[in-house]
């Protein structure tokens, strides 16, 4: 069974979400529910820290794409930060590296919002 960890904290108008474990077909619905919950509460600026994500499948990427779309409709955005090498390589191979706004660390992603 896939492991999925989620925590969030507020940094001014930005919500920092830290994810760990797998973002796959099994955990994607939980991830979606959590993100949707934040957006439904009125959050517009989200930084998603992927440092502890060890696996991402199309279902996990789909959640990020969908969340960015929902946020875009309210003038918001999702940014990704602290991606580890394995996940960065997957993003690069699949061509997602130039689609999402990706930052080296949380602070840079938060400060430039």
């Amino acid at each position, binding site marked *: *069974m*896939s492991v999925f960890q989620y925590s969030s904290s507020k940094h001014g108008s930005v919500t920092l979400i830290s994810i760990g474990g*797998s973002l*796959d*077909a*099994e955990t994607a619905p939980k991830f*979606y529910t959590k993100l949707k919950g934040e957006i439904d509460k009125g959050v517009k600026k989200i930084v998603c820290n992927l440092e502890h994500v060890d*696996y991402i*499948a*199309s*279902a996990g*990427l*789909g*959640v990020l*794409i*969908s969340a*960015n*779309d*929902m946020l*875009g409709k309210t003038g918001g955005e999702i940014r990704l930060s602290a991606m580890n090498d*394995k996940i960065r*390589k*997957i993003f690069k*191979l*699949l*061509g*997602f590296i130039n*689609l999402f706004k990706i930052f080296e660390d949380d602070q840079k992603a938060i400060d430039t919002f």
Partner: protein
Amino acid sequence: MPDTLSITLPRITSRLDYLRETIVNFLRSHSIEESIISRIELSVYEAVVNIIEHSSPEYQNRDIDVQCAVREDEILVIVRNYGDKFDMTSVVMPDLELHYKSGKMRGLGIYFIRTLMDNVEYSYDDMINTLRMSKIIRR
């Protein structure tokens, strides 16, 4: 060390960790590059998830067979499942940028497989869907 690995799985997502782990360990035991292992791991995962999510409930009790073979110049993965014909290779490859802009949550599995593997072929015979995926390696 065997050159071919065979795994039989039920059609449930909670067994996919086992599939991934077994494939990764098998390829590592053959000293395959980590970047190639990641490609195979993800492609096999997407192919099996696709079967689990799209196959008819009447075939729910039919297992999925996965075979992974390390050859001199390629890694060949064959995924077989009993059921109605479903040729995922016939699905139009999405334009990634348009897909991203549309905000669609699903429909990227085939994009992943075709992007990560060098060759993908499908056949259907006697109610068996067979997906053959290969990745060229240099050893």
